[in-house]
């Protein structure tokens, strides 16, 4: 005889919020969880770079030029004796500053414009749409290049310039979300309850629109890493002495035949960062925006 065990305890669980449910869905995607861990390490290292890097960012050791990995220089040194590991870690900070900063700038410009256009409609929406069209016509990389040549470059300027080219996507997304959500019953119900417009826009609609916006934000990170590295590789991005992954590739290119590690390290770093943020973005998309599958 088999005994059937019946669980008499009622299934009791705290109410699942949208975010709990999203985290549950995200966790089921193992690749995204691993990618999330890698992305987290990359971000943490970027923040604590000054404390974990073995040397100061611009330390030059002319006695060890183009050195192989040693106990003093785990990943070797470059052509003027700078520690590769140090440059990798500091470059992480540079890359992440741009990679997070640029979408942040884009979101700060694009979201308010899109929200205003989508919510209020009418003439305001017309203006927002024309602005979006205008900026869509300008090739983003060329625009960023133009800004760099006119205003020069630093980490924050680069984030700003790339960010300015990113606002269109955020505006379009926010506009679509607000357009779709503003006529929903719960928004009408909130109005009927006397909730002021600003509160409806920020408290009632924004959290409902947050999923797709977060997904889009994360998806812009790998794009930005690549673009920034591309500028550096062309010599138009971050300049010495600030360490930067793209710049490292540019510098090391000459020694590719003799010292492949010098190229290999930043290439792997860029690839790893791009891939991990990409997978995090995919996981978030599936978790937060089930309609996009």
């Amino acid at each position, binding site marked *: 005889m088999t005994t059937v065990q019946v669980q008499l305890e009622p299934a009791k669980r*705290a*109410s*699942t*919020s*949208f975010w709990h449910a999203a985290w549950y869905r995200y966790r089921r995607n193992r690749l995204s969880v691993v990618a999330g861990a890698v992305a987290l390490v990359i971000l943490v290292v970027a923040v604590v770079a000054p404390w974990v890097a073995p040397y100061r960012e611009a330390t030059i050791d002319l006695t060890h030029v183009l050195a192989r990995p040693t106990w003093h220089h785990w990943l070797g040194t470059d052509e003027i004796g700078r520690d590769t590991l140090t440059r990798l870690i500091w470059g992480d900070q540079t890359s992440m500053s741009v990679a997070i900063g640029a979408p942040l700038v884009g979101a700060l410009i694009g979201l308010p414009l899109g929200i205003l256009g989508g919510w209020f*409609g009418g003439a305001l929406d017309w203006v927002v749409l024309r602005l979006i069209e205008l900026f869509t016509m300008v090739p983003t990389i060329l625009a960023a290049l133009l800004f760099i040549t006119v205003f020069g470059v630093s980490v924050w300027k680069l984030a700003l310039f790339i960010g300015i080219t990113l606002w269109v996507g955020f505006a379009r997304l926010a506009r679509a979300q607000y357009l779709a959500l503003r*006529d*929903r*019953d*719960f928004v*009408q*119900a*909130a*109005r*009927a*309850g*006397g*909730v*002021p417009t600003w*509160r409806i826009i920020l*408290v*009632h609609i924004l*959290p*409902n629109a947050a999923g797709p916006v977060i997904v889009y934000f994360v998806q812009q990170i790998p794009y930005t890493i690549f673009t920034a590295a591309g500028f550096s590789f062309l010599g138009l991005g971050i300049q010495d002495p600030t360490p930067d992954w793209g710049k490292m590739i540019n510098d090391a290119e000459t020694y590719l035949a003799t010292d492949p590690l010098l190229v290999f390290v930043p290439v792997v770093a860029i690839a790893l960062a791009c891939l991990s943020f990409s997978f995090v973005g995919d996981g978030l998309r599936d978790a937060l925006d089930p309609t996009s599958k």
Partner: protein
Amino acid sequence: MTDDLAGARVGPEGTGAGAAPLLEVRGLRVAFPLERRTVYAVQGLTFEVHAGERLGIVGESGSGKSVSAQSIMRMVPFPGKVTGGQVLFEGRDLLGIPDAAIRSVRGSKIGMVPQNPLSSLNPVITIEAHFREVLSRHLGLSRSEARVRAVELLGSVGIPDPAQRLHEYAHRLSGGQRQRVIIALAIACRPRVLIADEPTTALDVTIQAQILQLFDELVAGANLGAVLITHNLGIVAAHCDRVVVMYAGRVMETAPVVELFRSPSHPYTVGLLRCVPRVAMHKARVFATIPGLPPQVTELRDGCPFAPRCDRVSEQCRRETPALADIAPGHALACWNPVTDAAARAEAASV
């Protein structure tokens, strides 16, 4: 602030109640200017609601019921515009006060129960947050005071284990429970008037009965003036004191509920009553209908709007618009050829 215009109050006309009405809508006109034409959704709607009275507004889809309710709260959807009339509440014309003032009336003095309970709660905020929002805004309650009041309110609308429910999100509640929560929200700030726009269309029949019973209890308990918008005459018969029959944005007939069901006089009212399905009808195997569709009024033209579908139509109906006139105390009618035939009335009234 509330009583500075009290002198403008107008006494009830031809109603049984002696006191001034809580809410009075006079000559309301709403139009939707579209690209090529203008839809005149409401044309001179007039009614009043007294404390403790449940007013039913009935009519087919597209007769302007919902738009009328929305214009009381000044929430007519774009591009609709109120083009005339008054909505008098506590002696003020709600159509003329500033935006900030109307927001403090919405949800506070006038509560609204929207049509679809399943989608009228925000999916990303908790039930408690919904209550906190209105209670802190209109009554200035603190977080903990709001929680206590919300538990009280949820209990009063028959939600079991209210303290636990507060932390939940709308998707964990059933349709009936959600509608109870919404009703609790609508009465949270002790409004004087409660407007329910087809509060039970999305619910199944047994839940409908419970919700309407709750509605009756609340209205009686707090001596509210209630407006119940529906297309279901059965609901009107059981849950309203007075009825306004709307057609094409106009009042066709208005009367106390018993009077209306006993002696319906407008051919449209008679037609509507005849359409109510009843058990005896299964022999005939067809449902009675009013031929044709309600019009979308895009031209302002003289003549009774119901004339094209009316079986008692005359030349005069096509030429002149009948005015709403009293035919008995509290019973007003806009018709040139009212139904007086006892047999037709009796058939219609057998609901």
